[in-house]
C-alpha cells in the first residue's frame, strides 16, 4: 500500500514592535526577568488594554505577504483559562474575525533533503493577533515566572493541511520566515522564542479521500527538528497502518537528542475557552486607505525576487534561491550585480568567496567590512583582465581583512596582470633555458610537460603573467 502524509502547521510569531501590544513597556528579549513590566501587562486590578497600532499594521502586512484577504472589520476576543503565566487568566486573542484569512505561501526549489520541491501553494487559513503570555521557568520542584514576555504581540499563522512531506513543511517555514524578515515583521529567532511551531500530521493511503488520525507534535525548536520529527512520525504512523494498528489521536513530544517522538498526552482534554468579544476594546475598522498604505510599504516578496533575479541577472534558480535567502544578502547581491557587466560572476563571488568568508568569521551580511561596490569592482578587474582569477582570490582576502578597495590593493601591490609581449618573452626564454630536459619531454610528445613549464613561468612572474598568453606563446616557441 502506498501512503501519503497530510501536514498542517501552526506557527506563533512575535511581532517586532517598539512596545508591547497593550501597554507601553518595551518589547525586547534578553533583559533581566520582570524588568519590562507595568500594571497593565501584569494584569493588576483596574488596568485596561490600549492597542498598539504598529502590531495591527504589521499583522496586516504579514497577511498581505501571505496573499491573505484582509478584514475590513475585525475584533478581539477573550480566551478564558487559568494558568500562572497568564496575568489576567484570560488571553486577549481573536476568535471568529481574525485580521487575515484565506492566503497562501508559494514553495519551490531545493528542499532540505536536497531533493527538488515542485512549485506549490500552501494555504494559509488565518492569521490572528494576540498577546503573548509570560514565560514559566521550572526550577526543581517549583516554577518562577518572567513577565517580560507577557503582552508581546504574537501572531498565530495557521496553515491548511496542504503539505505532504517534511521537505514541504520545511520549505513553508523557510518561506514564511523569509517573508517576515523581508517585511520587517518578526525576527523569527526560534532560540529566542520569537517563532514557535506546532505540527499536525496524519498519514493516509494514497487512494483514500478522507484523513487519517492526526497527531500533534510539540517541542520543535528548529526547522531541522521539524523536518526530522516529521520524517520520524510519518514512518511511525506508516508502520502502524501497515500492521493494521490504529494511530491514536495524541500529542507527542519531539526528543531531539534521541531523534524520536514520545507520547505527551492522549486526546486533548475538552477545553472550553468561553470566548466572548473583548469589551475593553472597540472593534477594529480597517479602512481601504489603511490597507492601501500598508500595501504601498510592502517589500518585494522573496518569491518574486527569485524569479526576477533569474531573468535579469541570468543566474540559475538555485543561485537565486541562495541569494534571496536573506533580504540583506539579496539587497547586497542586487546592488553589486545591477551595475556589473558580469552579474553571473558577481553571483559566484558572493556565493563562494563572500559567503564562505562570512561563514568562517561568523559574521552576517550587514557586518561585512566591504560593501557591494567592492565585489562589483573586483569582478570588473577580472573581467577587463587587469588581474587573473587567481590573483582575484588574494585581492578578495586582502580586501575583506583591510576593507580597502580592490583597485587600490592591485595598485599598491602591483598585481596588474603582465600582458607586455616582451616581458613575457623574457620569462619564457629563462624558463626554457633552465629546463632543457622538460622541453625535450614536451617535444617528444609529453603534453603534460607544457603544463609544468607554464607553471614555472607563472611562478617567475609571481602569478601576474596572463596565463592564456603564456600558454599560447610557449606552444609557439617550442613548436619552432
Amino acid at each position, binding site marked *: 500500500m502506498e501512503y501519503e502524509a497530510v501536514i498542517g502547521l501552526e506557527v506563533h510569531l512575535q511581532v517586532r514592535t517598539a512596545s508591547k501590544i497593550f501597554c507601553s513597556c518595551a518589547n525586547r528579549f534578553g533583559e533581566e526577568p520582570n524588568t519590562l513590566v507595568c500594571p497593565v501587562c*501584569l494584569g493588576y486590578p483596574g488596568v*485596561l488594554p490600549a492597542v498598539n497600532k504598529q502590531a495591527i499594521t504589521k499583522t496586516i502586512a504579514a497577511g498581505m505577504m501571505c496573499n491573505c484577504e484582509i478584514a475590513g472589520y475585525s475584533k478581539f476576543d477573550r480566551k478564558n483559562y487559568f494558568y500562572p503565566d497568564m496575568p489576567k487568566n484570560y488571553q486577549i486573542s481573536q476568535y471568529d474575525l481574525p485580521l487575515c484569512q484565506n492566503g497562501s505561501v508559494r514553495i519551490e526549489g531545493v528542499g532540505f533533503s536536497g531533493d527538488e520541491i515542485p512549485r506549490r501553494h500552501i494555504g494559509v487559513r488565518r492569521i490572528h493577533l494576540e498577546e503573548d503570555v509570560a514565560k514559566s521557568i521550572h526550577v526543581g520542584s517549583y516554577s518562577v515566572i518572567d513577565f517580560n514576555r507577557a503582552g508581546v504581540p504574537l501572531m498565530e499563522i495557521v496553515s491548511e493541511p496542504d503539505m505532504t512531506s517534511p521537505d514541504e513543511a520545511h520549505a513553508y517555514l523557510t518561506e514564511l520566515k523569509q517573508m517576515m524578515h523581508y517585511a520587517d515583521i518578526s525576527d523569527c529567532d526560534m532560540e529566542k522564542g520569537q517563532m514557535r511551531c506546532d505540527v499536525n500530521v496524519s498519514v493516509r493511503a494514497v487512494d483514500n479521500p478522507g484523513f487519517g488520525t492526526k497527531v500533534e507534535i510539540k517541542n520543535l525548536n528548529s526547522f531541522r527538528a521539524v523536518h526530522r520529527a516529521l520524517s520520524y512520525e510519518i514512518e511511525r504512523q506508516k508502520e502502524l497502518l501497515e500492521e493494521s494498528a490504529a494511530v491514536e489521536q495524541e500529542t507527542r513530544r519531539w526528543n531531539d537528542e534521541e531523534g524520536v517522538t514520545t507520547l505527551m498526552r492522549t486526546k486533548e482534554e475538552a477545553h472550553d475557552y468561553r470566548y466572548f468579544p473583548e469589551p475593553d476594546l472597540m472593534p477594529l475598522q480597517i479602512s481601504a486607505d489603511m490597507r492601501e498604505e500598508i500595501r504601498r510599504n510592502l517589500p518585494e516578496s522573496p518569491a518574486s525576487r527569485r524569479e526576477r533575479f533569474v531573468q535579469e541577472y541570468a543566474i540559475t534558480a538555485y543561485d537565486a534561491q541562495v541569494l534571496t535567502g536573506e533580504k540583506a544578502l539579496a539587497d547586497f547581491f542586487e546592488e553589486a550585480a545591477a551595475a556589473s557587466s558580469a552579474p553571473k560572476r558577481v553571483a559566484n563571488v558572493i556565493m563562494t568567496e563572500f559567503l564562505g568568508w562570512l561563514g568562517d568569521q561568523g559574521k552576517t551580511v550587514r557586518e561585512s567590512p566591504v560593501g557591494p561596490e567592492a565585489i562589483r569592482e573586483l569582478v570588473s578587474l577580472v573581467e577587463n583582465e587587469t588581474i587573473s582569477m587567481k590573483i582575484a582570490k588574494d585581492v578578495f582576502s586582502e580586501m575583506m581583512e583591510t576593507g580597502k578597495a580592490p583597485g587600490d590593493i592591485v595598485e599598491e601591490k602591483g598585481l596588474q596582470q603582465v600582458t607586455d609581449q616582451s616581458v613575457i618573452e623574457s620569462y619564457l626564454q629563462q624558463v626554457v633555458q633552465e629546463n632543457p630536459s622538460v622541453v625535450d619531454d614536451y617535444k617528444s610528445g609529453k603534453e603534460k610537460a607544457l603544463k609544468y613549464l607554464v607553471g614555472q613561468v607563472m611562478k617567475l612572474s609571481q602569478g601576474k603573467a596572463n596565463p592564456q598568453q603564456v600558454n599560447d606563446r610557449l606552444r609557439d616557441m617550442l613548436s619552432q
Partner: protein
Amino acid sequence: MDKNIATLSFAHAAELLREGQISSRELVQALLSRVDVHDEALGAYLSVARESALSEAEEADARRQKGEQLSPWDGLPISVKDNIAVAGQANTCGSKILEGYTSPYDATVVRRLKDAGCIVLGRTNMDEFAMGSSTEHSAYKPVANPWARSCVPGGSSGGSAASVAAGEALAALGSDTGGSIRQPAAFCGVVGLKPTYGAVSRYGLVAFASSLDQIGPLTKTVRDSAVLYDLISGPDPNDATSVPDAATGVSGVFDSGLSLEGKKIGMPKEFFDYEGLSAEVREKVQNAAEALEQRGANVKEVSLPYNEFAIAAYYIIAPAEASSNLARFDGIRYGRREVAEAAGRLLETYRLSRGKNFGEEVKRRIILGTYVLSSGYYDAYYLRAQKARTKLREDFARVFEECDVLLTPTTPSGAFRMKQVTEPLQMYRSDIFTISANLAGIPGISVPCGFTETEGLPVGAQFLAPHFAEKEMLRVAAAYEQASPAAGCYPDVTETDG
C-alpha cells in the same frame, strides 16, 4: 464649623476657600472629625487617608497663599469608592481577596482630581466587587443608612452615598454598573450621576462588567455632580472605550438659567405600572412631574416595551463579563494567597484562594457568568441577551425622538431594612429602574424628591437622557432640584437609630 460642614457642598466649599473663610486643612480636619465621631456606627469608610489628606491640604493651602492654586477646586477633599485605584492606597473592592494589596498607580479619574488639587480623604465601603444593592455584601462591614441605621444605604456605592449624606464627605466617587450610584443616592437622599458610557475613563476602576461600568459622582447638589463630571470626564488614551465626543463643560448650564420652557419630559409607563413600585414612591415622582410642568416643561407618557427584558439581559451580560474580569484574582501576583497543603499544587492554590476569599454573591455571579459563556450555551444566553440589549437601546433611541429627558422613579421603594432582602432575585429586582440605562449606555441621575410618609426615608427621582446629553439632563435635574421638597434636607446623624 462642625455644624455646617455636614451640609456644605463641594462648590460652596470652593467658594469659602477662595474667600479665605476656611482653609483646606480646616476642611479636611472637620471632615475627619465627623468620620471619627460617626463612622463607627455608619461604616461608610473602609480606610481613611488621615496623614496624606492633612499634608496634601497643607500643601494646597500653601499654594493658595502664593496664588498658585492648581484649579478653583484645589484643596477640596473627596472620598473615593474602594474599587477605584489610588496610588499607595489600599484597593480592596470590599473583598477579602484584595486584603493587603496596595495599588501602584492612580486611576485616570483620580489623576485628574489630583491634577486639579483635590485630596483623597478616604475609601468608601461597597458591596464586594460592586455586586449588590445594599452594601451588605461588603466583606468587611455593612453600612448603615444615615437616615435610619437599621436600613441599608443601597449599593453597591453605599459607602459613598452614606458618607455624603452624613456629612463625612463633601462629595464622593462611585461606580455604576446597574444602578450602583443612583440607587444608593436615592436611598440616602443625595444626588448620584451615572455618565454616558465612554464619557469617563474606566482606567483604574476595578472592572465588574466592562461594557456597563461607569464612574460618577455622589454629591449633595446637582451642581456638585456637574462640577465633578467636568473634572473627571474626557477621553483617555488608556481607555479604548472612552470617547472623544463626550459632553464637556456641563456645569455651564448653571450660568444660563434653568428654564424648562418647551422641554419635553417623558414618563415611561412601564416604569410607573411596575407592580413592585410602592405607591408612595410613585406619588413623589408624579409630584416631581407636576413641579416640572409648573416650570414650563411638557410632560408626557412614553413607552419602553423592551425594558421588561432589562434585568434578564443584565444578569447574563454582567456576570459573563465579571466571570472573566475576576479571573485575575488568583493569589499568584497580588492579594491573598491560600497556600495549598500539598505544596506546589497549583489548582488547589487557585481553588483555596478564590474559594475562601470571594464572598457568596461574587461566587454566585462567577458561576452564573461561567455557565452562560460555556460552549453550547453561549448562543442561547449571551448572544440573546446582547440582542435584547440592542432592542432596549433602540427603544431609548425611539423615545428620545419624542422627548428630551425621561423622568422615572430611581427605585421601586425606599431603603429596605438590613437582612430584609435575602433572596438574590428579589435583590436584583431592586435595580429594575436603573439597569436599562447601563444596558443602553445612556446617562442617568438620581435627585432627591421627597420622603416616604411611613418611615421618612428618602425617595429619588431619576432623569435619563440620550448619549452625551448630560448637559440637558443636568439642566432638568437642577431645575427640578430647586422645586424639590427634599432639597437641603440632611439626616441628623447623631440621633438616627430607627
